[in-house]
């Protein structure tokens, strides 16, 4: 539960606030006052607000992870949570705290935080591709649930940024391109408790990556791995991901022809 924070003063900087005006309608932790655009202003952000925002981010990432562990994730809920994460990330990028956080995470090693991202659907996609199941549904489903589009600006990868247009159907928020989170390939977990918990499951099947980036790798990663991957993403990762994704798209296309839809 969140401590009820004090309401942050509305900073009337006259800038177009990403999150709008002072959290007039909301009390306590849900308030999102106008962010300051410059990095210097980051320091003036009240610490309680940043704490609350950080807690919200943590909570959302954990919810997303848990979503994926469900037998069949609720797409609407996943999309709404992912959009919330994007909003927080956008605001944090604007006031410079995002960089600080990702650097801090890169420095710290937190193996204990790693949750296994299930994805039965990833197993599905592989199986489908290998066994040649001609079901458009399967292929698309593999994509689908994998989605929960976690996105971020990736300064290192211009081709990704341009490729992933987040042309929201909703022009109101005018959300700009986010690009994509590069999902890092994490090291296998050393946490014995986790090992035991998932000992009966073949780890190679779990991969949030597989469908998102089309690559096969061991999956276990925690919520912060998604964020960590921001700064350190390699063009190599990118190009293979694009290839795999285009492979999936081709497969999709072929399925459409075969199914005749």
């Amino acid at each position, binding site marked *: *539960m*969140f401590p009820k924070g004090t309401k942050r003063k509305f900073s009337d900087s006259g800038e177009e*606030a990403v*999150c*709008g*005006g002072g*959290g*007039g*309608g*909301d*009390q*306590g*932790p*849900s308030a*999102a006052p106008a962010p300051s655009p410059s990095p210097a202003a980051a320091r003036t952000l009240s610490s309680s607000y940043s704490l*609350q925002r950080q807690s*919200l981010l943590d*909570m959302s990432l954990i919810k997303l992870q848990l979503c994926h562990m469900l*037998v*069949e994730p*609720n*797409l*609407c*809920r996943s*999309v*709404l949570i*992912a*959009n*919330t994460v994007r*909003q*927080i990330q956008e605001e944090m990028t604007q006031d410079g705290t995002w960089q600080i956080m990702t650097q801090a995470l890169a420095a710290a090693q937190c193996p204990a935080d790693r949750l296994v991202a299930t994805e*039965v*659907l990833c*197993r*599905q996609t592989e199986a*489908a591709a290998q066994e040649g*199941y001609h079901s458009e*549904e*399967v292929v*698309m489903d593999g*994509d*689908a649930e*994998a*989605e*929960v*589009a*976690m996105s971020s600006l990736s300064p290192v990868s211009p081709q990704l940024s341009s490729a*992933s247009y*987040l042309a*929201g*159907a*909703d022009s*109101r*928020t005018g*959300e700009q391109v986010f690009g*994509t989170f590069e999902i890092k390939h994490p090291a296998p977990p050393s946490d014995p408790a986790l090992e035991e918990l998932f000992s009966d499951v073949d780890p190679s099947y779990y991969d949030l990556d597989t469908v*998102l980036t089309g690559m096969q790798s061991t999956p276990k990663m925690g919520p912060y791995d998604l964020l960590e991957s921001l700064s350190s993403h390699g063009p190599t990762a990118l190009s293979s991901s694009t290839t795999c*994704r285009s492979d999936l*798209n081709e497969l999709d296309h072929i399925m459409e022809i075969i199914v005749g*839809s």
Partner: protein
Amino acid sequence: MEEESDTRKINNSFLRDHNYATEADIISTVEFNSTGELLATGDKGGRVVVFQREQESKTQPHRRGEYNVYSTFQSHEPEFDYLKSLEIEEKINKIKWLPQQNAAYFLLSTNDKTVKLWKISERDKRPEGYNLKDEDGRFRDPSTITTLRVPVLQPMDLMVEATARRVFSNAHTYHINSISVNSDLQTFISTDDLRVNLWNLEITDRSFNIVDIKPANMEELTEVITSAEFHPQQCHTFAYSSSKGSIRLCDMRQAALCDKHCKYFEEPEDPSTRSFFSEIISSISDVKFSHNGRYLMTRDYLTVKVWDLQMENKPLETYQVHDYLRGKLCSLYENDCIFDKFECVWNGSDSVIMTGSYNNFFRMFDRNTKRDVTLEASRENSKPRAILKPRKVCVGGKRRKDEISVDSLDFSKKILHTTWHPHENIIAVAATNNLYIFQDKVN
């Protein structure tokens, strides 16, 4: 509105202990048929229970048409999708009745993946006096048969049978959230998170995809479809709502794929109330056309809005359902209540709208007098046939004697599903595993 209450408890499990509610008994949808004679409920266990209104009798005038169980059947079974290694829940998401065209009743019921058309018919006669069979069904020895007779229909105890007449499956990759029967009575739509499919009631092996918002790259997905409904009179018009708080009205005559809407309803955001939860609370959980076809009603987390179909830029009316929750959005996000999908419903004359809330409260708004009332569906707080007392939630400061403070609301008791009789002031309210039927007070 004054009411007298008449409670029905549904518990089809073998356990008769009313304090223990099995999850399978949780009611997931309620719907009156087009005459109001029948009321159907679907539950998490895949069962459908249909109630029928008693004929009004002169000898017992105070029992004015109460609803009794008419038929119970298992509509959907749990399935396992072997391809994806996923269980398909048998929970009934929606039931929609077809208008009655002959002696039998027809309804569509759907779970996450499959829509079924059920025929409910009565049998009160059976043939007796077969030549080749005994009364108990055993075949007679042909050598003993010396005469010929014609079987005669004899009366028997009324039996209500439900048979599945059509199964519409394999058309949805995502979870079906709504179905809607067209006014042409020949077609219907089924809607999942990303697609709307059009079916002909007679054809089960083919459906037409008329809306598809799946992006080429699933990572770009930011919006899903939350509900869709056909216009009550125009058979070519339907509306669908999204998780971003917009409604699109589409005309099927324009193109085979209705990706281009002909009207787009959205209210601009109020910057003073913006927060990280703004988008989530703007997500529309239900959309309903008014009976006269001129208005649309939408329910989002905190409000109900009535839209004039001719005005796209803002709603005609906005009603606050439980604005006192605005300050608790963070905790509601944490416990997932913020994702609860409440339904909303019009009364027969489109003058009153109703929707549910927490703590087994439900709210009614009179569009003409602008008065609203909060009522509670609970057996502890109201006796059968007693008039319901209006409830009030106190938002701060001094709490009056019978008010409830926001912090003592029970968020596990939510009224998500309600329905209103098409002509009369009779409502059915589902409170977890209990069904409440309320009627207007006579005289």
